[in-house]
């Protein structure tokens, strides 16, 4: 059964068409890489799938629910890593996660588990604004999995991550459906079985099945 089914997803910003009638289907447990140059529409597509934006037209069903209507219910089941980490610089790494535990309705015991998962246990008490850009990205990834969501939407999560970054992504994506935007074909090859290439808001060719490298 498909976790995500999008039909003719179109997004216009004034006269500009950022996404042009994209059809999308992602099966449960599948990992899909969305590739494309800057301005191809990757972020726009991912923001729609994460329910952070509404398309101008088209339909989107996630877990069988209408994503335009059931946004709040779906958000409890989606983990989203946006382009910017969106952290509170004055709060420590642990406090950032603890705050989002309250918003997600998750037990605060989860903070220590997640900090350990993303490799930030040693800097748990350091203000997020004083962490390196890569550590901030790890914290943003940790926040996305705080509520153990079955679907992950990751917009260039490898940005600023060090050489261990892909291993972290493998860990957090394991057992979940995931859609990931990246410029890095090698990373897409490692993480995903299938790829969708966008150019100027349109799908290029047919979705490709990639070789899986373990």
């Amino acid at each position: 059964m498909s976790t995500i089914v999008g039909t003719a997803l179109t997004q216009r910003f004034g006269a500009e068409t950022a996404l042009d009638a994209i059809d999308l289907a992602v099966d449960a447990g599948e990992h899909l890489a969305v590739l494309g140059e800057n301005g191809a529409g990757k972020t726009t597509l991912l923001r729609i799938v994460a329910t952070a934006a509404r398309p101008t037209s088209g339909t989107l069903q996630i877990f069988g629910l209408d994503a335009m209507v059931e946004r709040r219910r779906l958000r409890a089941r989606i983990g989203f890593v946006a382009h910017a980490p969106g952290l509170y610089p004055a709060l420590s790494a642990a406090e950032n996660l603890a705050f989002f535990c309250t918003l997600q309705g998750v037990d605060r015991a989860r903070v220590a588990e997640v900090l350990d998962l993303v490799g930030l246990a040693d800097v748990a008490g350091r203000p997020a604004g004083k962490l390196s850009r890569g550590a901030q990205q790890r914290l943003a990834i940790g926040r996305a999995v705080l509520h153990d969501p079955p679907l992950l939407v990751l917009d260039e999560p490898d940005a600023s991550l060090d050489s261990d970054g892909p291993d972290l992504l493998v860990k957090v994506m394991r057992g979940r459906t995931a859609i990931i935007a990246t410029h890095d074909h090698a990373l897409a090859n490692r993480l995903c079985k299938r790829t969708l290439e966008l150019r100027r808001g349109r799908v290029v060719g047919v979705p490709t099945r990639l070789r899986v490298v373990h």
Partner: protein
Amino acid sequence: MRSISIALAVARKDLASEWRTREIVPALAQFVVLALVIANFGFQFDSHNAPAIAPGVLWMALVFAGLVAFGRAFAAEREQASLEAMLMTPATPAAIFAGKALAAALLLVICEAVLLPALALFFAVPLTFDEVSAVLLATVGMAVLGCLFAAMVARVRARELLLPLLTLPLWIPFVVIGGQAVQSAMSGGSTTNSANGLLLDLDILFVVLTSLAARFVLDD
């Protein structure tokens, strides 16, 4: 119940951030004291006209301090891209908005804790319970309206210009009624209670309206 705990968590987070960065409160406290110093030299007042002049100075200082405090409430969230992270949780926009408004209101209350005694000192006017309650009641309504418009204009480049244009007209009832209440309290009049009752009615009206509007302003 969950909405209340979310609102309190949002407010606590904003106050903790302010406590650590000290971005707003010291500047606001400095501003209100400077406003009083300027008014002290600018107005010719004595013991007879001080209760008539002091409320005007009080509300002018409060209005401008409020614009700064409420403007920053959402501007910082947009700059950090953290508002979207909050909205991507199952927390309702109304609860998030209530937390933001509560924190911004408390920051203004801290400024009022500097402003009111300083006003009593500079203008030699009494500091009464009725006066303090009028200012606190007006702060609630001003906070929810100020935060709603601050959320609306946060993504606009000219937000510093737009926020006063949108907010000030709707703050006029609070300034007029609050001004009357404070003036009455300073001169020992008896109309403060009815003015405070009216301020409470306005607070309830705008708290309900802004909570309903929060979803459309924050999330859609």
